[in-house]
């Protein structure tokens, strides 16, 4: 089997964790990947500034969906400040697979949505030097 699609990625893709919606959550965020038209929605429930619950939904590839599934697992119980600290490298380590530049964008879609939500903005300010 192709090592890009190792068991754990496929497992998160086919059986995503935290999938669904939280209509009454404090934070609703979404973003799209213009490359492929993928879209991701995330609802985050904050209780005392701690992520008490999170759900995501959307359409996307195995990489972006597995990344969202794994990332939502990671943030439950974290403070908003800690969520804001999550960076690109964290996601790449979490996935643990080699990715080319365009697939990295897939991997980072969930992070973009999370940041949009955490910072209360609609577009995550990009790093001009990236």
């Amino acid at each position, binding site marked *: *089997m*192709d090592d*890009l*699609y190792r068991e754990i990625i*496929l497992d998160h893709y*086919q059986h995503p964790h935290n999938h669904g919606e939280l209509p009454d959550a404090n934070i609703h965020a979404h973003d799209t990947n213009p*490359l*492929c*038209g*993928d879209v991701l929605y995330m609802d985050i429930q904050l209780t005392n500034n701690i992520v008490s619950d999170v759900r995501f939904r959307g*359409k*996307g*590839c*195995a*990489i972006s*969906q597995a990344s969202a599934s794994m990332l939502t697992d990671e943030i439950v119980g974290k403070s908003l400040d800690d969520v804001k600290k999550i960076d690109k490298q964290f996601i790449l380590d979490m996935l643990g697979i080699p990715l*080319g530049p365009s*697939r990295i964008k*897939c991997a980072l879609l969930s992070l973009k949505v999370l940041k949009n939500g955490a910072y209360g903005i609609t577009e995550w300010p990009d790093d001009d030097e990236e």
Partner: protein
Amino acid sequence: MSIATLEIKKGLNVAAIREDFPILHQMVNGKPLVYLDSTATSQKPEAVIQVMDAYYRKTNANVHRGVYALAEEATAQYEGARKKTQKFINAKSYREIIFTRNATEGLNLVAYAWGRKNIRAGDEIVTTQLEHHSNIVPWQLLAQEKNATLRFIPVDDQGQLRADQIETLINPKTKIVACTMMSNVAGTITPIRDLIARAHAVGAITVVDGAQAVPHMPVDVQELNCDFLAFSGHKMLAPFIGILYGKRELLEAMEPFLGGGDMIREVHMHESKWNELPYKFEAGTPAIAEAIGLGAAIDYLNELGMENVRAHEIELTDYALNKLRAVDGLTIVGPARAEERGGVIAFAVPNAHPHDVATIFDREGICVRAGHHCAMPLHERFNLPATTRASFYVYNYPDEVDRLVETLEKVREIFKS
């Protein structure tokens, strides 16, 4: 082996053609490259690469305004390319051939220079659900600005335009009919002659998106009787340049689009006079090397014969369609018969996202494209967020289709589709 030494009777001698394309002979991810993305952009033969290289090494100079030897030679080559383009699509006059950046700019040029002047509130513009965004967005912007209505000819389950809708949709309110000759996703070859006839019957002008048709089949603008035809060099073995054909009477009556050098005859502080066609629409320094490369690409295609190019693609598409239909669960977009479509096949694999599919293909050295292919409305029509697309050109052959299908089996295994 050079193309000139081949006796091509029917179809193409692909083995010989492949020798002319240096890029094809490389390994990618340890596997021989299989390039199945010519619908996005085609590869270039030696003849095209070399003519541009030679231009920069021997001839480079700005055109039209120089009297010295290099400038005269550059101008002769640049204008020679225009004449070749004229003949290739059988335009009446070289004045009807405008070099643009790409097909997209050609379509926008019509939307601005013809559309902004002639469209009024309440007018209707008709396009189709099959279109590439380049043949939708310029008309959306125009319709919005002028308070006109944009209508779409719908597509049936086979990816063909709904013939029964044409008469209602193209009616006396219609001022522009913009339609592709060949879809870059479904492959559909549209009933463009019927649309043009109907458009002219109600007094509308016709804008044909030839980006996919012109590289892959014989196209004769006089026979089509279209008013405008836009296409791109980079999809027809040539470099990055676009071509807009327009009927002379229409072009003459139009105001210029971009203002600047070369498109003027006289500039005074408070008024200017425009240059003659086609220069009126070519503002600033044109893509000289690229036009010359286009000329070489046209020579190459003429040597192959566009009938043969078309025959080859029908054969290969037929072979691929048959193989792909045997793959369990695959959704194939577009007409069933290869004769009704171009050499492009978009498909969806159950449970597998096109992006993942394309990545697995890439691991095997196979270049296919994943996404909406700049045709979101068509994907919405088929309820597919995205597809994987393989497309063929003169250098592709059945073994490559076999590798495509083998890899698809691998995809299905990984994704248990």
